[in-house]
């Protein structure tokens, strides 16, 4: 986080701000290339990106549970009475 950057090149603060757009594929090709060059030269930022991505992946896994079968059955029973048995 303390090294210098060439004028016009992506700096550490910009990396921090642009991470979501970067991982969502929303940066222009020029911005993406500049950021990728920075990441290649800046291990702390590269590590930050990796942990940023890991947190997203692990949160997704943690939250991606299915509706319990017992509740699904009750949902279907409810809708069967209200819709399918009309």
């Amino acid at each position: 986080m303390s090294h210098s950057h060439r004028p016009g090149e992506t700096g550490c603060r910009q990396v921090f701000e642009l991470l979501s757009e970067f991982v969502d594929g929303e940066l222009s090709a020029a911005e993406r290339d500049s950021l990728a060059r920075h990441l290649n030269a800046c291990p702390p930022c590269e590590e930050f990106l990796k942990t940023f991505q890991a947190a997203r992946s692990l949160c997704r896994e943690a939250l991606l549970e299915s509706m319990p079968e017992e509740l699904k059955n009750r949902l279907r029973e409810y809708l069967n009475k209200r819709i399918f048995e009309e």
Partner: protein
Amino acid sequence: MAPDFAARLTRVLDLSLNRPRLFGITRGALVPVADRDQPLVERIQSGDKSAFELLMRRYEDKVFRLAVGIMRNREDALDAVQDAFLSVYKKIGTFRGDASFSTWLYRIALNSVYMRLRSQARHERTEPLDALESIMDPARIRTLMPARGWSERADDSLLRQELSAQLREAVAALPEDYRIIFTLRDVEDLSNQEVADILGLTLAATKTRLHRARLFLRERLSAYLQGDAA
């Protein structure tokens, strides 16, 4: 932390990171959900009740996760999901496809959740976290940088279970609108624009909140793992 535990932890995180989509476009931006739903919607609109059941099976887990994330109670969430699907069935004749079907469905689901919460009169919206307000402050960025890497840690089902509980707590600590945005975008894979449409927010506001939520969750995970590894 025992050495073998640390080694397993290392593999968990490493596997999460070594996926091709690390620098790529996430699935949400690639899947044309509206196109996929349209044939079923048209069948339901023409009176085919079996098509409604197919559509319900496609979305029941998603709607349930959204409801549980807000209501934090499975029984209450079930009530809201029932209301939502019944409402979808009753209103589907009015669906004209101006928005994608999933956007329309999630709006109805959110309305059902909030109607239930209002009727219970015990809903307390979470207040904005100081941690989120300051997470973009320049002075704070340095402290957010990992002191030492935990991304090289590893994969293990037992370890993932331990992390799951921590992460669910972290997500639950997010203010409600941030939590909904994160859930719809990063769990359900909707696009930023779809999330913005569902919540009636601007795209810019949606993206800002999503970014802050992701940074907050990264920070919480980092604090847990670095503390655990110490």
